C-alpha cells in the first residue's frame, strides 16, 4: 500500500509541477490544484497509514494509541485544505481579472511574439 500511495502522490505532484510551468493561466491554476491535492495527501499519510481505525474516541479511560489513527495529521490536513482552497479561489479571481484587463490568458499578461 505504501508504494501505491507514494506513486500516486508523486504522479499527481509531478503533473502539477509540469502544469505550473506551462504558459497559460488555466494550466497554472490546474497545476496548483493538483499540487495542493498531492500535498494534502502527503500530510495525511505522514500520520502513518491506518485501516479502519478511528482518530478519536469517547471511551473513558486512557485510550491505547495503537488502536487509533493519528488525529493531528487529520486536523492539519483540514486546515491545509481550507487555506489551499481560499488561496486558489483568490488566484482564480485574479486570473479572471487579468484576462479581462489584458485580453490574454498568458502568465506574462502578453503574448509571445513568435506565437
Amino acid at each position, binding site marked *: 500500500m505504501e508504494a501505491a500511495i507514494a506513486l500516486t502522490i508523486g504522479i499527481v505532484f509531478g503533473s502539477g509541477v509540469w502544469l*505550473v510551468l506551462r504558459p497559460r*493561466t488555466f494550466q*497554472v491554476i490546474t497545476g*496548483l490544484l493538483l*499540487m*495542493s491535492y498531492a*500535498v494534502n495527501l*502527503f*500530510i495525511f499519510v*505522514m*500520520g*502513518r497509514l491506518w485501516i479502519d481505525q478511528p482518530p478519536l474516541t469517547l471511551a473513558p479511560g486512557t485510550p491505547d494509541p495503537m488502536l487509533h489513527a493519528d488525529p*493531528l*495529521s487529520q486536523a*492539519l490536513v483540514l*486546515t*491545509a485544505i481550507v*487555506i*489551499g482552497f*481560499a*488561496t*486558489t479561489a*483568490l*488566484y482564480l479571481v*485574479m*486570473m479572471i*481579472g*487579468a484576462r479581462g*484587463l*489584458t485580453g490574454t490568458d498568458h*502568465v*506574462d*499578461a*502578453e503574448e509571445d511574439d513568435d506565437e
Partner: protein
Amino acid sequence: MSALAWQQHLLMLPIVVPLLVGALLIPVNEKHHFGKYAASLLSTLLLFACALLLFRWTDSEHWPGGIGVYLAANWSAPYGIALMADRLAALMLLLTAVLALAVLVFAASRWSRIGVHFHSLFQFLLMGLNGAFLTNDLFNLFVFFEVMLAASYGLVLHGYNVERIRAGMQYITVNLVASFLFLIGVALIYASAGTLNISDLGARVAALGADELRLLKIGVGILALAFLTKSAMWPLGFWLPTTYAAASPPVAAMLVLMTKVGVYALLRVWLQVFPGGNGPRADFGFTALFYGGLLTVLFGGVGMLASQAPGRIAGYGAIVSSGTLLAVIGYGQPALIAAGLFYLLGSTVAMAALMLLIEFIDRIRTPGASLLAVTMEAFAIDEKPEEPVGVGIPGTLAFLGLAFAACAMVITGLPPLSGFIAKFSLFHALLNPETGAAGPNAWMLMTLIIAAGLAGTISLMRFGVRTFWAAGAVVPPRLQISEVAPVAALLLLCVGLTVMAGPVTDYLQRVSDSLHQPGRYIERVLGEPIVPNPPEGARP
C-alpha cells in the same frame, strides 16, 4: 487566583486586535474613508503600545528569562498551540508597529482611497506578521504566513493596473508553490519528530535515531526553501524586484518587512533545533545558507547596477540586505547575530523610507522621464541641463534630496548613519572571531558586502544625480504634511539608531544571547502551567 494575569493576555492582542478591526471594517462603505482610517490607525497605535509593553517586559525579569508564554485554549505546551514572546519577537513586533504606523499615515491621503478594503487588508497583513513573530508552533506559523500572504496578494493588486496584475500573478504563483513546500516540510518534520512545537522539537531532536534525524533534516531543508523564497535568496528571489517595482509605494514598504519574516523564521527555527555544538545535528545547512547568502548579495549588487527604475533599484537593495543577513546567519558565529540584527533594523527602516520616497520622486519625474534617462545613457547624449544660477532650491526639493541621500547612506552603509555602524560592527565581529584569525569565508563575506555597497552607491548616486540635478526644469512636487511626516520620522529613526548605537547594540547582544540558549525556551514553553479548572461547586 486561578485566572491568568492580564499581562499574559497581552501576547494575544497583537493578533486579535487587527483581526477584529480588519473584519469589522469590511462591511463599512468606502465613503467613510476617514472613519476607516481612524479605526485602522487606532488599532495600529494599540499594537504599538502593546509592542512597547512586550518590549519592556521581555527585557526585564517580568517573565522568567524574559520569555512570555501564552497557551492558547489552555492546552499545555506540546499539545496545544503556544504563543511565545522573547526579546527578538518583541523587537520585530515593535519594528512592525513603527513601520505600519508610518505607512498608514502615508497612505491616508491618497493610496488608501484609490481602491477598496485597503484598511482591512492592511490589518490582516499586520495580523499575519504579528502572528508569525509570536507563534511557537510550525503549523501555526504556516497559518500566519498564509494570512500575511493572502493579505499581501490583495495589497499588491491594490490600485489594479496591468503592471500590478502581471507582477501579482508571478508573486502569487511563486508564493503558493512555496507554501506547498512549507507544508511538505512541516509534514516531514511531524513524521520524523512527532511534534510541531518549535521548543519541543528542539528538545526531541537530541534523542532522535539516525533514520529519523535524516528525515527531519530533509523536512527542515524543504521548510527552509519556503522561508528562503520569502527572503528572496538567490535563485529563489527573482519575483522580488518586479513585485516591489509594481506594488504601490506603501505596500512596497510593508513588503520590505515581509522579506525579513523569512529571515526571522530561519533564525527562530534553526537556533532552537540545530543549536550548534558537536554531534550529528551541529550546524546543519549553515554552509548552504552562507554561500546562498553570498550569491544573493552578488546578484543584488549586480541587479542594482543594472537597474534604472527606482522601484527596481530598491528591490535589488532589499535582496542585498536579505543576502547579507542570510550569510551572517550561515556564518554560524553567535557574535555576528547582534550585528546582523542591527543591520536588519537599519536597512529595513531605510528601505521602507526609500519606497515611500520613490512616490515623491515619481511626482517630480514626468512619466517619460525614466525612458528618457535610459535613452540618454544608451546614446551617450551629453545634454547640458539649464543652469539654475541664483535660484534657491525649493524647500520640498531640498527635503527630498536630503531624505534620498540619507536613505542611500543607510542602505549602502556609508558613514555617518546607522548602515555604517551596522557594517562596522559586522566587520569587527568577522575580524575578531572567538578563536584564531579571520578565515577565508570572513574575507569573502566582507569583500562582497563592500562590493555590494559600492554597487549600491553608484546606482543610487546615478539615480539621485539624474533626478535632482540633471533633470532640467524640475517642478517641485506638492507634498502633504501627512505624507512627508512618516518619511521624516523613519529617517529620524535611522539617525536615532546611529546616536543610540551603544544601548541598541547592548540590547541586541542580549537578544542574541537569549537566542543562543535554546534550553531556556524549552524549559519555559514546556514548563508553562495551564490554568487549573475551577472546582465543580464554583461553576455558575
